[in-house]
């Protein structure tokens, strides 16, 4: 198995992931061969427009795709630490059935997720404390102590007792910066603000000490000041808990401050990935450059128009042949970009870009064609 080759520093290695959805009109190829690596305790930012496949990638990792979606091919190798021994093994999440015991242990236990809509991500009829406690009782095992307590624990199906779960819930609420946590633990979702609900979601996610936190546009639905607070909180908690974060967003400004690495997605493919600095200061893919140009800047000439990317994201049933970006690309090479599929190749400051402009073979042909 190729897993042995992997670095112990790697937490999750996604290779050639393809996800398809069956819909009435046919098959939507939501992911067409996605590759990326998440390193332990680091943050990978995933950026792209709506429909680029960011959220689908996250749900594939959780094995939470909608019923009509399926992982067609690819591997998602997750580095799982043994309980006590410290040994680790790589398991391929792509091979695990969604409802299997292993997947349920991973979900919430080792890979936690927070969502775009904090307003409706908590069940309205249950308190904050119940949500956190539910997760704790499901994933955390009572510490193996001697005597009575152990007998009790076994009697209770090896669960943490409810009162202890409540104590942990209060601690977690305190950690995510909710004032008066011992009162808030019995609050219902409608009694909390949007920011507080997202804090509760983070408390639930981190209560079981996950190795990976997937944040799917966690601040999109919040106002700007709350956004900054939630992002700061996530960075602080990353320091404390040491989990890796996969931060999905379409906000370039946020990603710059959150992530060490960035993957730029376009129509089910990663078009460029690398260290945050290289992507921002020396983007290699025309799509990344176009994205960066479309950010408004302070000091921009007054009255000048903001640059936009020409055209629309194509309909999933009429994706252009060759490079999927060729119909909107300012640097398109007609006859080449619509005929060939670019691969991720090293370019610029050590990042990788999927663009034929960086493919030496293609460029050699182009230059020789010009000469003749």
């Amino acid at each position, binding site marked *: 198995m190729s897993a042995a080759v992997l670095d112990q520093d790697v937490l999750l290695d996604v290779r050639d992931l393809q996800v398809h959805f069956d819909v009435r009109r046919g098959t939507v190829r939501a992911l067409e061969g996605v590759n990326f690596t998440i390193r332990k305790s680091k943050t990978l930012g995933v950026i792209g427009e709506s429909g680029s496949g960011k959220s689908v990638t996250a749900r594939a990792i959780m094995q939470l795709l909608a019923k009509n979606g399926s992982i067609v091919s690819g591997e998602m190798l997750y580095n799982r630490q043994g309980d006590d021994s410290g040994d680790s093994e790589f398991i391929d999440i792509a091979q695990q059935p969604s409802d299997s015991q292993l997947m349920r242990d991973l*979900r919430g236990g080792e890979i936690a997720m927070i*969502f775009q809509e904090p307003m409706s991500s908590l069940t*309205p*009829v249950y308190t904050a404390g119940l949500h956190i406690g539910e997760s704790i009782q499901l994933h955390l095992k009572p510490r193996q102590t001697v005597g009575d307590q152990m007998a009790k624990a076994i009697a209770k199906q090896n669960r943490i007792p409810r009162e202890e779960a409540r104590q942990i819930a209060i601690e977690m609420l305190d950690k995510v910066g909710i004032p008066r946590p011992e009162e808030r633990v019995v609050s*219902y979702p409608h009694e909390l603000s949007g920011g507080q609900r997202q804090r509760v979601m983070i408390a639930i996610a981190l209560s079981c000490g996950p190795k990976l936190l997937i944040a799917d546009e966690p601040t999109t639905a919040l106002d700007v000041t709350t956004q900054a607070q939630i992002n700061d909180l996530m960075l602080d908690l990353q320091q404390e808990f040491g989990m890796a974060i996969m931060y999905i967003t379409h906000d370039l400004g946020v990603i710059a401050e959150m992530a060490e690495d960035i993957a730029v997605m376009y129509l089910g493919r990663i078009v460029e990935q690398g260290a945050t600095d290289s992507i921002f200061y020396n983007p290699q893919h025309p799509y990344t450059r176009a994205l960066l140009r479309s950010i408004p800047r302070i000091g921009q000439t007054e009255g000048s128009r903001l640059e936009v990317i020409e055209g629309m994201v194509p309909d999933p049933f009429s994706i252009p042949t060759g490079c999927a970006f060729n119909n909107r690309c300012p640097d398109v090479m007609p006859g080449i970009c619509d005929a060939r599929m670019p691969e991720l190749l090293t370019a610029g400051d050590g990042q990788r870009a999927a663009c034929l402009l960086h493919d030496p073979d293609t460029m050699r042909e182009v230059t020789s064609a010009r000469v003749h």
Partner: protein
Amino acid sequence: MLSYIIRRIGYSLVMLVLVSFVGFVIIELPPGDFLTQLLTELEGRGDRSAEDRVTELRLRYGLDIPLLPRYVQWATNFVRGDFGESFALERPVREVIAQRFWLTCALAVASILMVWVIAIPIGVFSATHQYTIGDQIFTTISFIGLGVPGFLLALLLLFYVVQFTDVDILGLFSREYRDAPWSFAKFIDLLKHLWLPALIGSITGTAGLIRIMRGNLLDTLGQPFVESARARGLKSRTVTWKHAVRMAINPLIVILGSEALPGIIVGNALVATVLNLPTIGPEFVRALQRQDMYLAGTTLVFFTLILLVGNLLADLALAWLDPRIRLE
């Protein structure tokens, strides 16, 4: 919460007064009803005892005073438990209704239990197995159930049972218990007879509730909190029942109080007539036909009372189940 309950009870009382007034006007309304006829007849006889009786009746029903005081008098008597007399049956309305009231309630409760016990699991199954063969079958059956009226089913069943079996299907008691005093054996006998009319009476309701449950649950299953519950690693059964069904069931409680309960009590008049059940429904219909207005009016007020109590209970249950409603 307490002030909410008090407020709701207050509204119900106001509603009850309004409806009772309407009920009273209905009693007064028809010309040529039993009381008028009786009075004409007595006056025609002209003898001493007849005159006494006329005076007594005029006094009792306050025929010489205007409408509003007469209503107050009637309402006061109503509250005291004196509902007037059924002239057709020549018995106090109170007796006629009391006899049938508890059986009607027993039948209604049995029907509702049956509706919920059958409809909710099927609705949940249909929603969680959307577009599978099982879902299609249940959906088809529930559409048929919605389309076929209950009394027709009762007739068909009656025909089948009488023709092919020797089960005693008519009524709520076997012959030997019909006039016997209450005993445990009579109660068991009642249970033996109750399930069939309950089943027939609940078919339309069940079919409707399956549709509603399926639709609600499908909506709920698409909510973000369901996905986040799955993302916490809960079993899909726990996600469905503890989170999704728990939320999807709330609107059904409103339906239970405002439609199901009164619907089953009133709507079953036809089924009860066909199956010859000793419930209020058929008696109400007969009272209207005979213009036995005190019986009809009282029954009407009782129906309203049941509706209001049902609504109140449903609202309280909902407030208890859904913290968002407890907001002051």
